[in-house]
């Protein structure tokens, strides 16, 4: 049986320590030990993307990563992107187009979109769908998710 131990993490640029069993998924450490509500619990199996965070800048499913295996990797949640210029452009587009309905999946959607545009500033339609395929929106806001990502990409293109 796993035993509780002190674990150090770097979350949103800050050093955090918690006591947990190493097998605890990062999601539950973030939500219930460190008090971050942004990453959401949807399926616990890496199939819905509601718990998406970034680990060293790459989108990752926090429900699939044991907290004991994170080590020194940098974890970013939606709470940690508040002054990120690309995130702010995404958030503005999300609001302008009124993407969300219930909103439960949207932090995960934004983190996936953010990682996509960081790596591929001018994605085509297939690249947008490919990057967002792992994020379920049960309300099916997909048409507006596509439109919001395309809008941010287009504005960035014009800004060059």
């Amino acid at each position, binding site marked *: *049986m*796993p*035993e*509780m131990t002190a674990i150090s993490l770097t979350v949103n640029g800050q050093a955090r320590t918690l006591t*947990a*069993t190493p*097998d*605890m*998924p990062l999601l*539950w450490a973030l939500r*219930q*030990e460190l*008090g*971050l*509500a*942004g990453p*959401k*619990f*949807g*399926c*616990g*199996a890496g*199939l*819905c993307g*509601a718990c998406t965070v970034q680990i060293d800048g790459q989108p990752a499913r926090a429900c699939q990563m044991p907290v004991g295996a994170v080590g020194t990797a940098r974890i970013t*949640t*939606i*709470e940690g992107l*508040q002054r990120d210029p690309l995130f702010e452009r995404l*958030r503005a587009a*999300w*609001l*302008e187009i*009124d993407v*969300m*309905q*219930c*909103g*439960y*999946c*949207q*932090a995960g959607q*934004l983190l996936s979109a953010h990682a996509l545009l960081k790596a591929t500033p001018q994605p085509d339609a297939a690249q*947008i*769908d*490919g990057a*967002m*395929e792992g*994020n*379920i*929106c*049960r*309300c*099916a*806001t*997909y*048409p*507006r*998710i*596509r439109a919001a990502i395309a809008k941010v990409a287009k504005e960035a293109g014009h800004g060059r």
Partner: protein
Amino acid sequence: MGVEAIDRRSFLRVSAALGGGLALEIAVPGRAMAAAATPAELSAYVTIAADGVITITGKNPEIGQGIKTALAMLIAEELDADWARVRVVQADYDPARYPDQFAGGSLATPRNYLPMRQAGAAVRQMLLQAAATRGAVPLAELTTEPGLVVHAPSHRRWTYGELAAAAAHLPLPDPTRVPLKDPRKFRIVGTPQVGVDSAKVLRGEPLFGIDTRQPGQLYAVFESAPAHGGRLKSCDASAAEKAPGVVAVIPLKEAGGAYALVDGVAVVATNYWYAESARTLLKLEWDLSAAKGHSSEAYAAAAKALLDKGAGTSLRKDGDAQARLATASKVVSARYAYPFLAHAPLEPQNCTALYRDGALELWVPSQVPRQAVGMIETRLGIPAARITAHMTRIGGGFGRRLDNNFAVEAAAIAKALPGRPIQLIYSRADDLKRDFYRAAGWHAFQAGLDSGGRLTALTCHAVTFGTDGKPNRACEMDANNFPAGLLADLAYQQSLLPTTIPTGPLRAPRSNAHAWAFQSFLDEVALAAGKDLPQLMLELCAEDRIVGDHSDPAKALSAFSTTRARGVIQRVLADSRWASRPRSGPRALGFGFYFCHYGYFAEVADVTVEVGDYRVNQVWVAGDVGSQLVNPLGAEAQVRGAVIDGLAQAAAQAITFADGAPQQSGFDGFLLGRISATPPIAISWVPSPNPPTGLGEPALPPVIPALTNAIFAASGRRIRSLPIRA
């Protein structure tokens, strides 16, 4: 069809708001709306602060349907508020002040459209009166601009904030007599408005039920029988109790069955993960004998036997359909079947509860908190008067949270741990296992055509689930299913199968299945008659008719108007260029129409069939929900969401059972729609001079027959059993 389907009698109470300003409560008793309406009052609460900021309380549960925004827009419109200075706060469950605090049936818009406007108009009237007194000018010379009362002759103006304290001391106008705006002068209603909570959600703020955090909070999971109807025989919790983080293991006894509380064992820990891990260490013995034989295959075989036998309980008998069929020049027969479905909202069921000194405090993401509180009172003996229920934002409803077993469980766990706030969380497997499923169903149809290809008779025998001659929850077939009332010889029958599987309403309950079965069969009938489905529909709807009771305002909106049906059918045919599309090759159009939840929707799907699978290229939607959209942004979101939801249901969704146990336990087995399968969706609104009605549901049903009829047109494969990719 009457324009005013909602009784207007109402009254207001007013008082000075804390810190200066005006507080208004409006109550509208005696609504004469749907049969489900309880004889409760409807109320809203408005405050205007001295600085002019207006706070409107949202009374209804927000499940993503946008009601928190839409109802506030109605009040703000007639108040002539500056929308940018309106704040909307969520009410607690408070039946003394706010009746109808529920989200279901697409009812919030039709029930609240007029009362919310009257509330706003009454406040505006008081502000005008206050300005008349202050400026010593005739009331008739005053008008308003957003947030201001204006006296044009003297070029004077007062902010609402300046007037609010004085207005609060004025007598109340009768809200049924205050003038309402001409909708052509609306500044807020009918304009696209972003959801009032969107900015917060997009910063990850803790608004949802599962985000609730109370000091010293613990987390619970609840292990129930693996099969519906199972009973707990024995529990050995010794290993689980010793697991890391575990605080308590609590066996709970059945009280009220699946809809309230079933046998099970709660594991309470300092973190959900510890509770979830420890539950695997429980050694439980279950008596599953009651669930034996309750399997999808057994149900299908029993349904087939009932349909073969042919005689069900009559739901409706117009003329003599059997005699007509006997003399028809052509008879078309077919059977249709659809599976159980789960709701699978993305936020799993959860509820936070704190029991202390005989009182219970709940943070409950419920579509109908009244039912949660009532059930807890009945089953756990905590008086409703000692229960406080906070309504959280809700991560999707779809009808799942109209049933509140999760709240009863949370309350029972909290009651066993007085003084400790506990949050019960369902795993995804729990959520799929403990659902109240859209019922599976089976239909046998027969239709008769005369020598001229006219439909002359229709029969439908439906098999669904029921007990003691009564259909189970959300299982019954609607005796008014189209084309009832438009065909002289028509008969609908129903037979019931016993089940242990709990059923419940899923977005557009019943309609989400019946639209598919009826519109698919009518597509077959139309083709047998040498025409297409829209042509048959337009023939059946050729005369201006109202089917149903439209003299009774309570039923007027439920009555079916052929005029409104034709309006959306013709519009979607034009939008999709139905008549001019080629009729051959692997790409084709399919059509579907349905009327439910007061909304008329006609939809066309453009589908390509290739190598045993299909792709949806586009969907066109034409909808009539009355004279006015409240928030066009929200309205379009509901329609697109419903269409994509319907496409995903039809494509691959099913919950199957083996001896009462669901065979799907996650999103690998129960497949929700994803972005890549989402086609472009074009929406046309067909306004009509009717009261505005809701949009959470009615756009979903017709897309499923539109899809399957298109697959037939493109491939010759008639889909008579869902899901398509079974």
